[in-house]
Each structure stands twice: as C-alpha cells, then as structure tokens.
C-alpha cells in the first residue's frame, strides 16, 4: 500500500476480504470435513449471513462517502508490474451487498429444498463456491483477476446446472451453458489483451475512472490514440465486441441467450440465484465497470440489441408451458432492458433495475420452486406420470399455497411494473429515459422505445397467464384424475422466511418513499456522474400512466381468455404461435447450422487425423520397420557372420590340434619325432 490509510478504511478492506473469503472457507470446510453431513448447509448459510452483514457495513461506509482502493504488487514481468487489490466504489459495494443479500435467503431456502437430496453437501459446496466467485468478481480491481473470477463464476454455474448429472438433460444443459460462456470468455479475454496493449495496465480504476486513461484517449482519423500508443481504430471496435460477447454470454443477450432457459435443469434454488444476483448480473456488472470504453455508436448498438433481446424473449415467454422456462425467458427479457438502458446512457437506472429485478426474480423462482415441489409431492403420492413443471397441470393453488401465492403475486406485479412495487420504479425509469433518448435520434430510433413499450405489454400478458394458470381456477390435475388425494402446503419457516423477506424487498419503500416517481430513488443518486440529467416534463407522467393502463387492460384480457374463456383465443397453429413456441427457432438454427457445422468440421479433422496424420505416422512406422529389418539383416549376417566365422576357424584349428592328443603313446612320440625332423629340415634349408 502506497499511502497510509485511515484505520477505518483498512478495517473496511479487511471486512471486504472477509466477506469474499467466508463463502470460500465454507466451501473448503464442507469439502474437507463435512462429507455427507447435514451440517454443511448451515455452515454455508452462516458464512453467507456473516458475509451479508459485513457487506451491509461496507455499504454504509463506502456508498456515496468515498472510494477505497488498495493494491499491492503481485508479480513483475520485465518492466511491467502487475498489481492486485480491492476496489470498493459505489458499484462494487452495491453488487457486494446485492449478491450476499440475495444469496442469504436462497441458502436458507435450499437447506429445506434440498434436504432429501443425496447430494445435499455437494450442493452447498458448489453454492458457496459460486457465491465466493461472484463476490470476488465484484471487488477485484484489475482485469486479470476479474477475468479469473469471471471464469470461476461460469465454472461453478456449470457445476450447479449439472448438479443432477445423472439426468441426460442436465448434462446437455450444463455443457451448453459452459460452451456458450466460453465464447463470451474468449471475447472478454481478447478485449483485456487489447486494453493492456493500448494502456499498459490492467488497473480498473486507472482505466475507467472519470478522466482516466480511457476517458482521455480519443479516436481520430481512423486511429485510436491514447497517452503513448496509437493503434488502428479497428482494435477499439474489437475490444468493444469482445466485451459485448462476454456480456451477452453471461447476461444471456441475443444471440448467446440460449443457455439460460436450458439452465433450468439445475435445482430451482440455483436458478433463483443464477437469475437474480450471481451469474447473469455479472454481465451487466461488467458493462458498468467498463462503461466509458463504449462510444455513442457502440452504445446505440448495445441499446438495439438489448431492446431486441427483451422483445424476443417476451414473445417466447408468451407460449411456454414450463413454469421455469417462462421465468427464464422473463429474465432474458429483463436483462435485455438492462442492457438497453446501459446503451441509452441510463447507467444508474440500469443498475437500479438490476437490483430490483434481483429481488423479485429471486422471489418468483423460490415461489416456483415451492409450487414445483408440491406438484412433485402430488405426483409421487399418487404415482402420476406428469411433468411437475408444466403449468397446464396446475391451477387453483391459491387456496393451497396462500403465502406462495401472495409472494408470486408481488413478484409478478413487480415484473410487470405495476405501481407500489420496486419493478415499477426501475422499469418506468428505463422506459422514460428510452423515450427521451430516442427523441433526438430520428424516426428509426423511436422503434426502440416502441418495442420496449410493447415488450412491457407482453410481459403483462405472460405474467398474467402464468399467475392465472397456476393459482386461479381449479387444479387441472384433480380435474383429470378425480381420485387423487392432495395435502400440500407452503412448507416450514425455511420456505416462508425467504419469501417474506424477498417480497418485502420487492415493494417500493425499500427503494423510494414516493411510490410513483423513480427519480426519488436513493440508489440513482449513487451513480449521478453517468446519469443524463432529464427534464421533468409531462412525459414523466404520461408514460407510466400509459404503460400501466395498457398493462391492466392486457391483464384483464388474459383474465377473460384463461378464466372466463369468453374472448377469442388466438389460434394455436399460426405462424406467430409456432415462432414463439419454438423459441424463434434459434436453438434449432444453432443445432442445424452451428452445431452441425462444428460436427462436420470435427469429422473432417477426424478424417484428416486418421488418414493424413495417422497415415504419415504409419508410413514413418513402416520406414522404421524396414530400416530396422535391414539393420537386423546386417547384424545377423555380417556382424554375427564375422563372429561365427572366427569361431569356426578357432574350432577348426582346435579340431586339428586335437587330433594329436588322441591318447596313443606312440603317436605322441611320432609327433615329437616329426617336429624334431621338421626343425632339422628347416634349419638345413635356412642355413643353406
């Protein structure tokens, strides 16, 4: 640390580190010591409870008070120092608080929800690890560690989505989520590399603060000019596209949104966490961190993509029959709103929507979890062959599950954005800002607020459809199988307490004392630096009135369709219906084109590998064998031949000499005489 910090700031930093590390400690304890124990759930819950208390303390100390940034050298490569540290600013502490506060009810809920599951302890290990990754992601001060935890969030979500790994669907889903997230990760990594090349630092504060490195760099004459480096402007576009890919993959934006509906294969409590605070929020959080990087044109693109995603997801949600799938598409739709809000410059409103959405979406998922759990009970008690998530089987649960009904109602109204809920405040903020933004941009851009408005109406319809089909009317199961016995209820306090808490947080007083004016929300003042100053005019009243009026009409229309059956129902075979029901054929398109293309490519690579590379290797092998054959022949006939020849010669000589040793005394004498005579003859010959 370069300069001495006041004692309280150091304490805050330690609190932040503790808040991040506690879930990890819970993961380690569960992993090492509590193999199958039911205690593991409470260890994780305790860790996240302490984390959220610490996060709340940090929040009060940092929010709108000061920014704390400590760092120290991590390692050095050449002349580049890499720092690691913690950056606590308004965005970090908001996310820190949000993640831990959302994770707490999910943990409590999970201790009850997962109690009969064989993988209870494993579940809490993953859950703690997931929370740790996300908490670390939001407080890191450099892009390298941000990226590392970004990957860990993806990895731990992979583990959780595939929690029931013995189900083929879950395995498919987590593979899909992982692969799509990898695409985003590559984008983010590319962007980080480009940024480092341009600015020689990974430090988020230096890069992105007001008047920081990015703010002071310009684009001129096709060059991207920063303090000392000029590069072609194309790199700036690539960096932005990379960041967008990362955001699109994590926050499920078109065209990388298809993993999110499939991620429903995980336990419902995990879906609640993924959809509310941890996984999908990471993308929007990243946008918030690197916001100054985007120039106006890129922001407009972002707004259009967000708007399209919101609209597309809403249309898909209209016709889905799977309870969790409806909620998943509503999440994609709301994330589209957030990205769109980022694109139009409503930075604060976007984050505000992220926070409100986290609460009510978590609430909706936990309620859906209870509903599905109870339907599953009916299914198991009566040996029915039904899909417990199919809303066609439900109905009339209002009386059986009163608390769940109220919670879902509050969550649903917040999702539609009706007054008195938190969703109203943030959504109207986005809609009004979108309208104001589009006014100065020409007619084409008016389509964006128009579609946002239309999406809001669609939201009203599908939420109403879901609520009516699940909670009103009569239980369809009982209608189809009159003999079944039903005894279900809201469940114990571990189900009820999280619902009550989240339902309270989804109401307006938590964010603003004025339930009708989003401008008075405390949260928006935290990010005033980026917020476009808007003039209060008639539209600020007209748009909410218009949107809510339309929403109410549409809810009434849905009521007429599903309850009274008096209005004309749209045909279930039209082109639009099929488009919506089949999720715009995007998945099918990916399977037919992208996946098939990759498979064909792999097949070709496989063929190439087998025929060419293996062929080459085999050829080498044959050559090797042939050479070895020659060497072996040489060895056997030449080298060994010489040896054998010498052996034969020695043997022959030996045999010859042996003949003199035949044991006959006279022969010895004869030999001796012969030798003497030879000596004499030789002597005579040499002398003469």
């Amino acid at each position, binding site marked *: 640390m370069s300069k001495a910090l006041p004692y309280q700031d150091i304490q805050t930093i330690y609190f932040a580190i503790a808040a991040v590390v506690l879930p990890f400690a819970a993961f380690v304890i569960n992993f090492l010591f509590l193999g199958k124990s039911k205690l593991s759930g409470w260890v994780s819950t305790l860790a996240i409870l302490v984390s959220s208390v610490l996060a709340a303390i940090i929040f009060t100390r940092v929010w709108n008070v000061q920014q704390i940034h400590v760092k120290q050298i991590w390692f050095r490569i050449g002349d580049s120092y890499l720092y690691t540290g913690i950056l606590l600013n308004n965005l970090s502490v908001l996310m820190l608080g949000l993640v831990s506060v959302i994770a707490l009810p999910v943990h409590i809920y999970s201790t009850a929800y997962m109690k009969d599951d064989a993988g209870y302890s494993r579940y809490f290990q993953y859950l703690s690890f997931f929370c740790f990754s996300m908490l670390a992601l939001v407080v890191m001060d450099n892009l390298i560690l941000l990226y590392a935890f970004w990957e860990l969030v993806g990895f731990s979500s992979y583990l959780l989505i595939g929690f029931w790994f013995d189900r083929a669907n879950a395995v498919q889903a987590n593979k899909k989520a992982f692969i799509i997230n990898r695409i985003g990760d590559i984008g983010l990594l590319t962007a980080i590399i480009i940024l480092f090349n341009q600015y020689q630092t990974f430090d988020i504060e230096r890069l992105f603060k007001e008047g920081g490195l990015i703010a002071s760099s310009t684009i001129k004459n096709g060059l991207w000019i920063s303090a000392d480096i000029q590069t072609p402007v194309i790199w700036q576009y690539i960096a932005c596209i990379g960041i967008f890919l990362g955001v699109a993959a994590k926050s499920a934006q078109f065209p990388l949104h298809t993993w999110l509906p499939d991620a429903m294969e995980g336990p419902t409590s995990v879906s609640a966490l993924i959809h509310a605070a941890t996984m999908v929020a990471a993308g929007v959080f990243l946008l918030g961190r690197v916001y100054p990087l985007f120039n106006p044109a890129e922001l407009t693109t972002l707004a259009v993509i967000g708007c399209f995603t919101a609209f597309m997801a809403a249309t898909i949600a209209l016709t889905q029959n799977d309870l969790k799938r409806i909620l998943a598409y509503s999440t994609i739709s709301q994330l589209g709103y957030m990205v769109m809000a980022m694109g139009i410059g409503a930075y604060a409103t976007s984050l505000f929507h992220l926070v409100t959405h986290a609460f009510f979406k978590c609430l909706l998922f936990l309620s859906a979890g209870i509903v599905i759990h109870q339907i599953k009970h009916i299914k198991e008690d009566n040996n029915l062959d039904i899909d417990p998530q199919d809303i066609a089987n439900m109905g009339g649960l209002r009386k059986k599950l009163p608390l769940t009904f109220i919670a879902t109602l509050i969550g649903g109204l917040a999702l539609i954005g009706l007054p008195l809920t938190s969703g109203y405040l943030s959504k109207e903020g986005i809609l009004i800002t979108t309208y104001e933004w589009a006014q100065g941009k020409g007619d084409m851009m008016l389509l964006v607020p128009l579609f946002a408005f239309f999406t809001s109406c669609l939201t009203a319809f599908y939420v109403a459809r879901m609520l009516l089909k699940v909670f009103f009317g009569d239980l369809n199961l009982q209608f189809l199988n009159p003999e079944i016995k039903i005894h279900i209820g809201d469940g114990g306090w571990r189900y009820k307490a999280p619902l009550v808490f989240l339902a309270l947080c989804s109401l307006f007083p938590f964010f603003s004392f004025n339930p009708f004016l989003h401008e008075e929300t405390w949260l928006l003042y935290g990010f005033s630096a980026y917020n476009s100053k808007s003039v209060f005019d008639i539209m600020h009243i007209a748009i909410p009135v218009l949107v809510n009026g339309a929403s109410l009409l549409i809810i009434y229309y849905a009521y007429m369709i599903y309850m009274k059956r008096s209005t004309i129902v749209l045909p279930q075979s039209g082109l639009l219906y099929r488009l919506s029901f089949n999720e715009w054929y995007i998945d099918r398109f990916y399977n037919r084109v992208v996946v098939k293309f990759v498979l064909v490519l792999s097949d070709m690579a496989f063929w190439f590998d087998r025929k060419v590379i293996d062929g080459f290797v085999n050829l080498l092998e044959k050559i090797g064998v042939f050479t070895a054959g020659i060497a072996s022949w040489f060895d056997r006939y030449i080298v060994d031949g010489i040896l054998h020849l010498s052996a034969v010669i020695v043997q022959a000589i030996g045999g010859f000499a042996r003949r003199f040793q035949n*044991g*006959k005394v*006279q022969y010895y004498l004869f030999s001796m005489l012969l030798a003497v005579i030879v000596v004499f003859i030789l002597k005579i010959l040499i002398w003469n």
Partner: protein
Amino acid sequence: MITLADFMIVSAVLFCTGMFIIVSKKNSIQILIGVELMLNAAILNLVAFGKYDRINNSGQMFALFAIVLAAATTAVALAIILNVYKQYKTIDPDKIKQLKD
C-alpha cells in the same frame, strides 16, 4: 681298422631300428625291445667315445653301469606292462587311449 665312424654307423642303425620298432609295433613287449635297442645304441657310442677319454676303460665302466640300469628299468617296465595288462586286458598301445583328454 675299425674307425669311430663305423661304430657311429652301427650305433645309428641300432638307434633307428629301435625308434622304428617303438613307433610301429603293436605290442608293448616289442616296444620294450625297441627301447633296449636304442639304449644299446647309446651304450655303443659311450664305449666308442670312451677311447678318447683320458682315463682308460672309463667308457666300458659306464657301459656296465648303464647295462645294469637298463636291466633295472626293463624290470620296472615289464612290471608296468603287467599292470597295464591287468587293467586293460591288452598290451596293444593303440587300444589304450586313456591319455586322451
């Protein structure tokens, strides 16, 4: 006058005869006779060269010694032959091959 050369010739003939008998005969007794012939060739030389010695008749004296010794060795050799016969039931040296390795 009989010269030294005549003695030498007789001696050489005797020696060669003995040698021939030793290497060619298939009976150990005949070989022993050959050995005696060669011995007598040597004794004849001893006596013939004794004429040139400073002491008179020393050659003849040594010849007598040698004859006595030859008789002794012949006795030993005959004893050996007898034992060989006991062992191998033959005295043909070609059939006794135990010296072979």
